């Protein structure tokens, strides 16, 4: 390399988060001895305005051409430090982040000396990689100002309206013949007594009357090509009439289904029913039971389904209240393992249910209730004895489960599912509405069971996230992608294309024969292709073989460096 390397290392104290558990001064001193390092500095908070200004000044004054910050995680502050480099005229991809907080000080709180040594090791590895970093320019692509919303339940309808009202074209695809999703089958929505049918009908009307929204009921996604800003979605009705839609972003709002408790607690759909059947009876005013027993957590929080569906507690409580209001003499027992009544309004409902005389009986999983003819026997945890409750209607409260077809859809979209086949967001805290794939968003019960209010909240969130790209009209994609850097070596075998999880590699005919061609904007930078090419013709930018090898070698160089022997 012609250019002389001038690396600057900034060691962050993070107040006492780092400096409290390892010797940052010693670490900074050590960093100065590493190859190509011409400047080191210890900062109290590197991410503070003073810290960032310090980095910028140091770059200019010392003509730094590589910057290493040893601090926290890229997830929180990489953008901050990249921006600082850019402001000082340094390409942001010449910045290297070393994590000495989450991966060092915090986990080795009792081992000051070892933690200090580990921080040195990590920085030595970072400096080795930094020396091989290459400048990159962001990839910019146009965004088609239109969105595809998959699912016409409350979440999908809300997201579609939110985007349409901001002036964007929306294609709303619903698998069923009618819009409305699960709310069409519900009676009332908690925590306030709002009729589900009327509420969803008005939403549907609003959507159908909106000129910006094209509704495609009876259609589902069959094929998806392209990438953020430029997706080609093929939707069809399964009867041969496929339609191609060009959209910039996609929102997934496919909802969830209620688990049918087939085979448990003598479920028969007549006097032992599920929650949806209860809703239906209440809605149709066909409810006349006198002694009602609801059993919660049927098929939930059990071995094969460990999760809590969250919304069923409140639905049961709401239904209990409705029954008591309709017939104060009715006996309503709710058999529960735990109660999920989060939030002010929900707590209030629980109190109201108790006041109205709904009785709550705590049972445990190891002695579940037994449903017999006309009665339910249950071991009460509070009383410490078995209760025999008269019943003419048993309602089994089951959890929401992932929709059938979630796996197929996730494959088409190339987005992940969790172990229960619910869609998995990019990050549980930091990016709750996004998928890891840019340009695709998630809301509602497709992600995890939510109430109507939460579905609306999430739909607005997803629409808001999606509208960022639609408004900007252009999207910047991280240029951390794989490239065919040795076209000569490529044999056109197609192994990389078959392994790419994002269909970002196509095989093309060139004058020199079949060659791999990378579609930069579609590449997410997983590097599977580079790790598989037997001609080593593919380079994973920013995580190249050279950079990773340098890091590995640096990790084990400790002794040589310390004893002054050249590596």
């Amino acid at each position, binding site marked *: 390399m012609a250019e002389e390397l001038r690396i600057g290392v900034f060691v962050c104290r993070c107040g006492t988060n780092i400096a409290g558990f390892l010797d940052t001064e010693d670490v900074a001193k050590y960093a100065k001895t590493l190859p190509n390092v011409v400047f080191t500095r210890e900062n109290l908070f590197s991410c503070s305005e003073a810290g960032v200004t310090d980095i910028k000044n140091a770059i200019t004054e010392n003509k730094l051409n590589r910057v290493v910050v040893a601090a926290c995680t890229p997830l929180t502050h990489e953008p901050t430090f990249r921006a600082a480099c850019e402001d000082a005229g340094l390409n942001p991809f010449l910045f290297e982040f070393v994590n000495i907080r989450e991966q060092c000080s915090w986990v080795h709180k009792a081992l000051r000396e070892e933690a200090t040594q580990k921080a040195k090791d990590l920085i030595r590895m970072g400096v080795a990689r930094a020396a091989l970093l290459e400048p990159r320019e962001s990839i910019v692509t146009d965004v088609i100002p239109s969105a595809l919303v998959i699912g016409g339940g409350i979440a999908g309808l809300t997201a579609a309206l939110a985007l349409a009202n901001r002036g964007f074209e929306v294609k709303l695809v619903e698998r069923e013949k009618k819009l409305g999703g699960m709310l069409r089958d519900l009676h009332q929505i908690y925590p306030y007594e709002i009729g589900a049918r009327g509420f969803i009908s008005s939403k549907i009307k609003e959507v159908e009357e909106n000129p910006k929204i094209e509704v495609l009921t009876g259609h589902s996604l069959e094929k998806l090509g392209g990438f953020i800003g430029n997706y080609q979605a093929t939707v069809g009705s399964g009867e041969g009439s496929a339609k191609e839609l060009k959209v910039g972003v996609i929102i997934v709002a496919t909802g969830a289904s209620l688990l049918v408790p087939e085979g448990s607690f003598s479920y028969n759909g007549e006097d032992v029913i599920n929650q949806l059947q209860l809703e239906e009876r209440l809605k149709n005013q066909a409810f006349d039971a006198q002694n009602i027993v609801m059993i919660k957590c049927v098929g939930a929080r059990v071995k094969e389904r460990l999760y809590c569906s969250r919304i069923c507690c409140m639905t049961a409580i709401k239904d209990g209240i409705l029954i008591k209001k309709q017939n104060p003499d009715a006996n309503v027992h709710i058999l529960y393992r735990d109660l999920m009544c989060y939030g002010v309004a929900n707590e209030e409902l629980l109190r109201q249910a108790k006041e109205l005389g709904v009785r709550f009986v705590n049972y445990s999983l190891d002695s579940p209730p037994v449903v017999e003819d006309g009665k339910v026997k249950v071991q009460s945890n509070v009383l410490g004895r078995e209760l025999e409750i008269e019943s003419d209607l048993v309602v089994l409260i089951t959890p929401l489960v992932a929709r059938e077809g979630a796996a197929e859809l996730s494959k088409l979209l190339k987005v992940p599912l969790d*172990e229960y086949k619910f869609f998995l967001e990019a990050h549980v805290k930091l990016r709750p509405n996004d998928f890891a794939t840019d340009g695709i968003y998630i809301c509602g019960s497709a992600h995890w069971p939510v109430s109507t209010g939460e579905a609306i909240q999430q739909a607005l969130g997803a629409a808001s996230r999606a509208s960022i790209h639609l408004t900007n009209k252009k999207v910047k994609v991280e240029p951390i992608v794989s490239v065919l850097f040795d076209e000569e070596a490529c044999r056109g075998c197609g192994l990389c294309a078959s392994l790419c999880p994002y269909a970002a590699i196509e095989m093309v005919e060139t004058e020199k024969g079949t060659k791999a061609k990378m579609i930069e904007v579609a590449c997410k930078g997983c590097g599977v292709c580079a790790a598989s090419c037997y001609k080593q013709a593919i380079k994973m930018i920013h995580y190249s073989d050279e950079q990773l090898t340098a890091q590995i070698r640096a990790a084990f160089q400790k002794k040589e460096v310390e004893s002054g022997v050249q590596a």
Partner: protein
Amino acid sequence: MCSGRVDPVLILEAFMCGSDGVFIGACLPGECHYADGNFSTMGKVALTQKVLANQGVNPDRLVMRMMSSAEGAKFVEHVTAFQDRIKELGKLGSTEGLQPSELELKLKAAKVALKGKKLRWVVGKYMEFQQQGNLYGEKFTQHEFNRLFDEVAMDECTIQEILLRTQDEPLSVKNLAELMGLSPRRVLRHLVDMRKMGLVVLESDDKKTVTWRAAVSSAEAIESEKTK
């Protein structure tokens, strides 16, 4: 960085740098942040373990564990177990009974083998063959893959090791068999195959002993020459 980026060559690099163990952390099955990168890692790790075992290195020194970012306790559990196991195994080569020079040669052969076409194809097609079957629609079971992995790992490593051992001085079948701890019959079988591929040539210094010499130096041999 996706675990799918972990090139088996990098794993060998770490061992050759003096690492006594390599731990690869990956997303949970089906929860990969890069769709299915972790599945490809599973195949790569399984194959690399076979290669290590074939070269006399305890495969426990390479571990892949899957967990979500929310499972801190699980991570600690895995790392602690890994650390305990590596402590038990001691320094690389010690429990294996391999002298440093011998270990270096064995690892070098493994590294070149893992860089090459055959092993990369086998592992690259692992998922596809398991899910969709090969060109003829034949699906492979885990058991069949295991056997396939065993076979190709053994063949490829042996070929590379013969190349490395015969590049400086020609050796007889008997010499090679002793050095590599293999039967002369197996060594000969490989040599004959390798000769057909143009990888080795027959040499004879006196009229009695037949010796074999590498006709091509492995790519790795060239690379290490450069870095020296």
